[in-house]
């Protein structure tokens, strides 16, 4: 009960101070809100297949069924145009709709709880003044019982919600600013913190070693973002390299894949360098979740360049399909072609993400600093489940990589999803008239 009271009390305090903010008041406020919306990456989830920004309808998968994002345009009937600032604040920071119903925690309000009053005001001003109304109902979320009962989410909040909130939007210290962004608007934990039996994030703050220690989103493994100390993965990235990755989706260690592409495209690539450096500074302040391990010796390069390569081996598949870009030393050619050696996706315990990239290909987002949307083509039409398993097993053990072998049935499961997604993995952005 203490948790719930704390939240309510803060909400009450908030009401007092926020009640007087009005839309249309200040263009600079709405401008700042536009930036806060980027920090929060609202557009990624609240834009559906119809491609109307903020009109909702994107399915956010959960173990209990798809949760559809809502229309948060300024439309008074179907969007949030008739929300007061307090109502808006309650929805964003507490997960309670205007009509009192609970939002599902696919909406990262447990993270957003830390958003400062100033940022909430700005965000509110942005949505009401700058986001054109889309008079369209977003699809209704229908989860399996008992999750179909939204009131149950209140209990969930009580049990699993974060402890307290510490608004610190104007922190001058980079680590503090990074903490505010990562734990709050950035809601990095939504994907990068492991979830418990009730789909709750197991931690919301950096002092808990489970926070950002790696998780899963839509069948993709997500790496640990705890970048302090040493060892493989993010601890081997410098602060600048982390910021570069956030700004461009690529750096000396890898290239973005999976859901993170949307985060980069719509959020982090549009942030100030200071904010990306602050995020990186904070991540570097979190002790690594795994102890460093010795890098095993590897003769993969020698095997690949040997005169004789077994025609049915993973080595042969690598030479015929991968080495033109990723090279026989697995080092690739960043920032064009990502290295596979010490690559977080390659070394994930769960090979699903890597298999997905092999089957469906992957395209980098085009960002202001790095407009090249370089793409790896799809190999699903060319490689069988056995071949992908063979190839992935080789790559996951080559050049110092250490990850479990891949079995053909793991490939076939990803293949089913790739077929189902029915995306054009390789189609680039199309040109449109202005």
């Amino acid at each position: 009960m203490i948790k719930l009271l704390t939240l309510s009390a803060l909400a009450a305090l908030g009401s007092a101070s926020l009640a007087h903010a009005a839309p249309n008041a200040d263009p600079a406020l709405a401008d700042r809100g536009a930036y806060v919306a980027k920090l929060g990456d609202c557009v990624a989830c609240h834009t559906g297949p119809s491609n109307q920004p903020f009109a909702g309808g994107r399915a956010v998968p959960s173990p209990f069924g798809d949760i559809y994002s809502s229309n948060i345009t300024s439309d008074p009937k179907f969007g949030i145009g008739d929300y007061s600032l307090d109502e808006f604040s309650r929805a964003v920071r507490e997960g309670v709709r205007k009509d009192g119903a609970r939002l599902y925690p696919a909406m990262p309000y447990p993270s957003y709880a830390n958003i400062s009053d100033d940022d909430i005001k700005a965000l509110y001003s942005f949505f009401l003044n700058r986001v054109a109304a889309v008079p369209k109902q977003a699809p209704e979320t229908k989860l399996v019982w008992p999750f179909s009962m939204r009131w149950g989410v209140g209990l969930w909040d009580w049990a699993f919600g974060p402890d307290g909130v510490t608004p610190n939007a104007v922190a001058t210290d980079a680590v503090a600013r990074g903490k505010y962004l990562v734990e709050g608007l950035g809601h990095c934990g939504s994907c990068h913190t492991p979830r418990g039996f009730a789909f709750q994030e197991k931690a919301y703050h950096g002092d808990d070693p489970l926070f950002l220690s790696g998780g899963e989103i839509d069948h993709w493994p997500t790496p640990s973002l705890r970048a302090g100390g040493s060892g493989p993965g993010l601890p081997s990235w410098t602060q600048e390299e982390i910021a570069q990755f956030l700004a461009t989706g690529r750096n000396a260690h890898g290239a973005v894949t999976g859901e993170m592409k949307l985060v980069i495209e719509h959020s982090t690539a549009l942030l100030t360098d200071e904010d990306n450096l602050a995020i990186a500074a904070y991540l570097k302040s979190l002790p690594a979740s795994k102890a460093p391990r010795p890098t095993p010796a590897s003769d993969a390069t020698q095997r690949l360049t040997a005169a004789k390569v077994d025609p049915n081996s993973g080595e042969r598949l690598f030479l015929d399909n991968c080495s033109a870009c990723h090279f026989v030393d697995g080092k690739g050619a960043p920032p064009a072609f990502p290295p596979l050696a010490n690559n977080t996706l390659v070394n994930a315990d769960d090979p699903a993400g890597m298999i997905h990239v092999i089957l469906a290909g992957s395209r980098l987002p085009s960002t202001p600093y790095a407009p090249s949307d370089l793409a790896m083509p799809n190999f699903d039409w060319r490689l069988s489940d056995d071949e992908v398993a063979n190839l992935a097993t080789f790559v996951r053990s080559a050049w110092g990589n250490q990850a479990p072998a891949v079995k053909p049935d793991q490939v076939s499961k990803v293949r089913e999803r790739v077929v189902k997604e029915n995306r054009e993995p390789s189609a680039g952005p199309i040109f449109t008239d202005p």
Partner: protein
Amino acid sequence: MARTEKPVDIVLIGLGWTNSIIGMELADTGLTMVALERGENRDTVPDFAYPRMIDELTYGVRYKLMLPPAQNTVTMRHDPSGTALPYRSLGSFLPGIGVGGAGVHWNGHTWRPEEVEMRLKSYVTETFGAKTIPEGMAIQDYPVSYDELEPYFDQFEKMAGISGKAGNINGQIQPGGNPFEGPRSSEYPNPPLKGTYNCRLFEKAASEMGFHPFPLPAANASQAYTNPYGMTLGPCNYCGFCERFGCINYSKSSPQTCILPALKKKSNFSIRTKCEVIRIDLDKDKTRATGVTYVDEHGEEVFQPADLVISGAYSYHNVRLLMLSGIGEIYDPAKKTGTLGRNYAYQMTGGYSLFFKDKTFNPFVGTGSNAVSMMDYGVGQIDFGKEGFIGGSIITSAQYNGQPIRSLDLPAGSPAWGSGWKKAAHEWYGHSMSIASHGSNMSYDTCYFDLDPTYTDAYGQPLLRMTFDWKPNDIRMTQFMKAKIEPIAKSLSPDSLKASFKTENSHYDLRPYQTTHNVGGAIMGADPKTSVLNRYLQTWDVHNVFVMGASAFPQNLQFNPTGLVGALTYWAARAIREDYLKDPRPLVQA
């Protein structure tokens, strides 16, 4: 009645190298731009994706990335008295189609002209006397100098990430580079590619004979490279599928790899594909363009109003479009009137194949620009008075690819088919190298374009008619090169040599591949009486029409044209952006 589109500030005809550059260089003006491209949109993935692009028959032989002659072709004759006929298969030049244009399928040789080539007529007259220029030769100076263009060559090379070795930086000769090149303001943005065995053999032989070999400047990135637009190229893997192919590896410089994704981010720029421009529309006085008319993918005729028209179509398609639009007067060699269509030129090439029983070249390793060249017999290095011709060549040993259909060179006398051919192929594949000349081609009164009186395209508009043949001056030039290459080839002691050079009996044939560089027809110059465009590539007659591309060359260089095309485009873009748009008018007073 044509449908009318919403007006734009600038309409771009075609979206290859030139208009991709124009789009990028004008984007920050905030003016609305639409590019009309008659082909499809194309991107590295999926259109050039590994491994499907690695298909010699589809792309190398059947020209899947080229403009099909069934859609548009030229008619051809050798002299003004002949009857031209339309060609249903091209080989001598390969116009591209689709987004990226010929910038998708080029080999990537990226040269700057020699300084004297930019002022050829003056140079010849001053150095060897006006009488050196034979009757009927129509060479002219460019109205812009090498020095004026230097910053724009530099800009193009940095954008395209050219791999090479400078020979002259600010007047200082650099070891390993081309000592005869004009001064450069900086080194190439990427180091040279690694050369193959033939390159090393040629380099050694040429050096030992006192020549100055250097790596050919290549539009294949030798390492990961990010250009000033933020675009990233990946290192070339020497797969050898460059010319006629889209690069699988983001390594060959093209609009796709160097510009378009950055351009797509500009909200004032847009493109419509499968839209073929059929004319530039003019006002009543024919002094101002009002826009362009195109046929969209549904066959509907559309008028696109625009304040500024920039034609960046393939070289001779620019010329035809001006003719169909009534911009400028079509050249008539008999009456000596008109300038539009004048000074068409091609390129003079020749070569030796060297066959070695005991040397193995691995032809699977190559790039479109994997070569060592020398310019000791370039335009500026030859005494025209003594040798009796005007022109010059670069001499190159290259290994582009090992594709079996087109790159299986056999010794002279080998059977062309059957078991004898198979035996020869088995014996000689991978055992030959070449030393070739790639040379200038002068312009002449009787080499030109006009509109064909008989043959029309699908829209009922006349085809372009080409009148062209080899002239004695250029034959003498190539025979000179033959004599110079032979001792170099023989110094390598091949088991046999095979020569292929034009002779006085040769007539131009546009079916076999030679090199693909058509120039002229809408040439730039200092005087509207002898040119179509002024020094900023603006048409003399209609000031809001600019024309990019090699159609502006008054005669052909000894080089592949793209380096100069790129520099002229940047040069014109700057003039448009910083001068014309502020006060639209003729930028040069006639």
